């Protein structure tokens, strides 16, 4: 084995919401490519974009929103590899008796939305606009997880989150689909970076994510195919 090339590392900067799926895919990729290590840096997409701009040694960037991808001038032809759809999340037992998007206009319910500045907030805005509803939120959360936490703890009666998040939350949260969700789909772009130290294997990893196996893992987590 001393004759083998030293193990090469692929450094993947991925949105925090991809933690579970990418960790699984990374392990499978390593198994399929002996001698290659996949290192992840999971954080908010905007923080990752900032780090890449400041010269972080990344090979691959998978963002939760096209906007963050655009901040990275180094990105070469990003492609969408997954989509995420909104869903209404309510605490177990649905104490607010929420049935659809109309509940978000109810002053008497405690409602959480994501802030407009983050992808799920932008998507929620689109969906609500499509449904013609003026929402009366009590809080505009920093990200999906924060909104979901408030649902889990029963602090709000309903929140608009991603389907993947409802799925991950398990039994504590119930998800309610609504028709306008399809109007507010969030795209996840991925790319190999221009200055990637290990471009070849980075490309291989991106291909693996976009392979059928990749799609299957993503679908299992609640993502839809592009």
């Amino acid at each position, binding site marked *: 084995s001393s004759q083998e090339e030293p193990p090469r590392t692929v450094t993947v900067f991925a949105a925090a919401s991809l933690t579970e799926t990418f960790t699984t895919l990374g392990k499978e990729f390593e198994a399929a490519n002996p001698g290659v290590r996949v290192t992840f840096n999971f954080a908010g997409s*905007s923080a990752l974009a*900032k780090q890449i701009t400041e010269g972080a040694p990344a090979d691959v960037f998978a963002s939760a929103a096209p906007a963050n991808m655009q901040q990275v001038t180094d990105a070469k032809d990003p492609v969408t590899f997954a989509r995420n759809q909104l869903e209404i999340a309510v605490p177990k037992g649905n104490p607010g008796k929420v049935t659809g998007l109309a509940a978000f206009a109810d002053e008497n319910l405690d409602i959480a939305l994501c802030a407009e500045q*983050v992808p799920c907030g932008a998507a929620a805005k689109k969906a609500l606009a499509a449904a013609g509803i003026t929402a009366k939120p*009590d809080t505009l959360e*920093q990200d999906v997880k*924060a909104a979901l936490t408030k649902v889990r703890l029963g602090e709000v009666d309903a929140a608009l989150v991603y389907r993947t998040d409802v799925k991950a939350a398990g039994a504590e949260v119930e998800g309610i689909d609504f028709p306008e969700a399809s109007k507010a789909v969030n795209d996840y772009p991925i790319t190999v970076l221009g200055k990637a130290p290990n471009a070849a294997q980075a490309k291989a990893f991106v291909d693996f994510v976009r392979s059928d196996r990749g799609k299957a893992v993503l679908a299992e987590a609640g993502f839809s195919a592009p």
Partner: protein
Amino acid sequence: MSGRRVGKGRLPAVLVVPAVLGLAFLVLPLVGLLARTSWAEFPSRLLSAEVGEALRLSLVCASLATVVCVVLGVPLAWVLARGDIPGRRLVRALVTVPLVLPPVVGGVALLLVLGKRGPVGGLLENWFGVSLPFTTAGVVVAEAFVAMPFLVISVEGALRAADPRVEEAAATLGASRWLAFRRVTLPSVMPGVVAGTVLSWARALGEFGATITFAGNFPGETTTMPLAVYLALETDPQAAIALSVVLLVVSVAVLASLRNRWVGG
């Protein structure tokens, strides 16, 4: 002239060199931020309604939280330093816990206890009709929770360094322990209390994770500057930096003027 001051011109290099390094370490990143700020937009940004509101809310909440910290924290520090309570070591270590807790988890912990379904929050709601999450009061609570350890630990350190015999002198003059505390002990540890207050206020002003988790984020009600900064960072990093600079400038101005009045020099 200054060469004739006692000890002046004699600051030893072994202290001055690390001090300068330390200062550079703290200040250079700020210089970096300032260099990236688009000063042209600065005044308009400062005057925009949302920023003004967030800034006002930040200052008000941080100040109220500091008041809470002082009112509850100074007695706690005194009991820790002077009271002969069992398990003091453990209590003292427990006080530092909110520091170690990732703020978001701190917010979750607050929700668990003071939220709608929490044991204390439920009581508050049923008895007084008070609900803390998603209100300005909730911001104050979250900030106080995160900032109080700074006050308690600073003040306790100061109390431990103070001579307890002066309190004894007050007792022989007929002062109750409360009077002795108020009129003798407290003034004598003022530098420590001021240090703790400054730390608490600054920490409360910069608080983000616990606030957004416990109190949420609603403009005019719970959106403090750090929340505004965080969200701006998502879409417009330039704006986020400018907002941070606003926060910094205001806090430095407040501290430079206040500390001067309190501690002199």
